């Protein structure tokens, strides 16, 4: 159908905050059907890039296309194809899990009967059914991630953009989320997610991009980027980190 278009295509995205460059021209093509990991240290511009890609933050320059539809000039069509789980953004957390799902579903213009059915299934699979009418604000961090994922998945998007989906999630929930995402990609969907957990990225992704200081340093299929080494080695080499401390913190050992 739209096979000729990449699922997500970023062209020269750039953003400054108060004169500080956060993202300095990012070009990225995410092939349809791929499982794409966006890697980078803290402050590399991952969240800023993804926010601009999904229409939450207006870029200073550049543009973003979702399956060929421009996020900024044709937002309605682009946003229909898109499911987003932002990081560091609150949900409407004074609703219960079921209420929140119903809200997101109706907001996406879905049929109420379909919303009911999918919401019940998602709550069941994500083990959130036991929470009943507990408000999302009272959920644990892992439960919040899961309900956020459910909201992004509910309307059956073609492209899923997830910011730090495995942050603050316990191993059991993480395994569940991995499983669901895997199934989604097998079924023809595309996932883009940011992370700085190497193991998860190595295990899941077909493609990776390493972002540091607002620009893309390495990009491509994961085996190409790794080149026979571990992803962590490549990452540390690209980002350029300091590994050991010397004399400075002597007072830590009493």
């Amino acid at each position, binding site marked *: 159908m739209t096979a000729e278009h990449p699922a997500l295509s970023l062209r020269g995205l750039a953003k400054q905050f108060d004169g500080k460059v956060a993202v300095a021209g990012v070009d990225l093509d995410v092939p349809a059907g791929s499982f794409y990991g966006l890697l980078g240290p803290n402050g590399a511009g991952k969240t800023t890039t993804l926010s601009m890609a999904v229409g939450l933050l207006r870029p200073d320059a550049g543009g973003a296309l979702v399956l060929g539809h421009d996020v900024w000039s044709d937002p309605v069509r682009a946003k229909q194809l898109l499911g987003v789980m932002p990081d560091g953004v609150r949900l409407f957390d004074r609703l219960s899990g*079921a*209420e929140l799902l119903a809200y997101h579903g109706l907001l996406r213009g879905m049929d109420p009967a379909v919303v009911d059915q999918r919401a019940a299934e998602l709550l069941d699979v994500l083990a959130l059914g036991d929470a009943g009418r507990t408000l999302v604000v009272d959920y644990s961090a892992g439960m919040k991630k899961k309900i956020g994922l459910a909201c992004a998945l509910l309307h059956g998007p073609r492209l899923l953009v997830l910011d730090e989906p495995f942050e603050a999630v316990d191993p059991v929930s993480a395994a569940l989320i991995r499983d669901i995402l895997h199934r989604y990609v097998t079924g023809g969907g595309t996932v883009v997610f940011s992370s700085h957990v190497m193991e998860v990225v190595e295990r899941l992704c077909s493609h990776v991009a390493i972002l540091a200081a607002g620009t893309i340093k390495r990009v491509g299929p994961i085996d190409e980027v790794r080149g026979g080494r571990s992803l962590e080695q490549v990452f540390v080499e690209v980002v350029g980190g300091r590994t050991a401390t010397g004399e400075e913190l002597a007072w830590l050992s009493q």
Partner: protein
Amino acid sequence: MAVAVTGPTLSAPPARPVSARHFVRLKLRVMGNNFRGQGWRVALFVGGAVAGLWFAGTGFFLFAAPGLADEGRYALMVAAFGGGLTVLGWLLLPLVFFGVDETLDPARFALLPLSRRTLVTGLFAAALVSVPTITVLLALCGLVVTAGSLGGWSAAAVAFVGVVGGLLLCVAAARAVTSAFATALRSRRVRDLAAVLLAVLAALLGPLQLLGIAALSDADWDRLQGVAEVVGWTPFGAAWTAGIDVAEGRVWAAPVKLLITAATIVALLAWWSRSLESAMVGAASAGPARVQRGTTGGAVTQLFPRVLGWARRDRFGALVAREARYWWRDARRRANLITVAVVGLFVPVMVNLGGSGFTIDSAEGFTASPASSPGLSSLSMLFVGLLAAVTLANQFGFDGSAYAANVVAGVSGQQELRARMAAFSLYVLPMLVVISAVVAVVIGEPGWIGLMAGTLLATYGAGLAVNCFVSVLGAYSLPETSNPFALNSGAGIAKSFLTLLAMLATAVAAVPMVVATALLGDVWLWLALPVGAAYGLGAALLGAYLAGDVLDRRMPELLSTVTPRR
């Protein structure tokens, strides 16, 4: 860069005690950092400071007038009533309109090894550093001039000590009351108590107004003098009248009054420190989460409150349902609703009855005919409409970053604004009808109910339209604390400016209703309701249409302004 430390210091005891100075410096630093790179914030701050200075100057001459004009007999009254009003305003205004500056959020200090005494004195000292405190200090120094010109240097010195003490009392009272009130509102069961508390506070406006009108009437001078003397012995007036007492020869009274003030300050600080502790603990854990079971129906059925059973299960319906739930479940929004209900009921009753109180005082008998006129009633209804609508002035700020969900879903601006108005009106419209009915009955003119409801609806609708624009263009982020009165530093002045601006614009938009009341006479008593309702509805829809267009173009910008900076 980190400070270089020489030698191992891990086991060494903390060398320097923390004093109030550190808190003041911290507050100034935070304020300064907030201005960095935000030109409009600096401009707002300067504007606020200039306005404060103007108020200070006016107040100063008001308080100094008895001394400058050498009219000794007014001195006590000016000090007792003016000072008392200052304390009361300091107490009530944060609750009703402006909120408390939480530049230094107590919860941030929860993990630091500070004693409660250090914390309270530090936060208190930091609270003193603000534009309003300086304004009030300057204004009330007029009392020092009065005392000095009537009683010489010693009286002036005592008056100055009194003014400083009174100012400390004002700040302590505001902090203690809002802190206690916030704690009460947070535990959801006590919210009814909170409503009663606000009602009592608002009811205090009534007697004060009676006093003001009586003072103008010049009818019962001696009685007023007596009241002033009594007020002078309460914490409200003790600090301000001490200097006047010295000037008028009652030297023994001054130390007693200063003692009353000091004792009140200590008591208030003790109260504050108690509620402060629970505020700090509350930030760490909001208590055990209650697991409520027993869900009935599907997800969609659960989202819609029962009163919205008729609503269509579509995008607009979902927006209205979510907003309706939020007005009740979000403590910050609920506090606003309660304020509108209580103030909206009490102020018109007091204004309209205040007029009748005046007639009872000066006229010959206790005739039941109130002095209230259709014009006065319209004006009081105008105020209620303003107050109700201005609650929406920062409606997106209530949502904070959660608004991202609507941006991602691509909700159109017009739909967004119309849904928000509809949900808020679900609560407010019944309230407005009740208010106009109660006021009409209380003042003994049931026939005016149409006039009142009409004016109210027209003002409310016009206010919604104005506040649509304010909420899209002038949104600001609210801190993510559980204190419903908390404001970000710097936002206090911005908020009061925007509030005043929105109220002014609304009042202008609603003026035709008052003019019609004055010109059209009895016909208008019947026409007011349909005309007012149509006017209000039309204005609100037009506002949503125009402001929705603006919102469509700047959704991401709005999202970033309401997202709290971390």
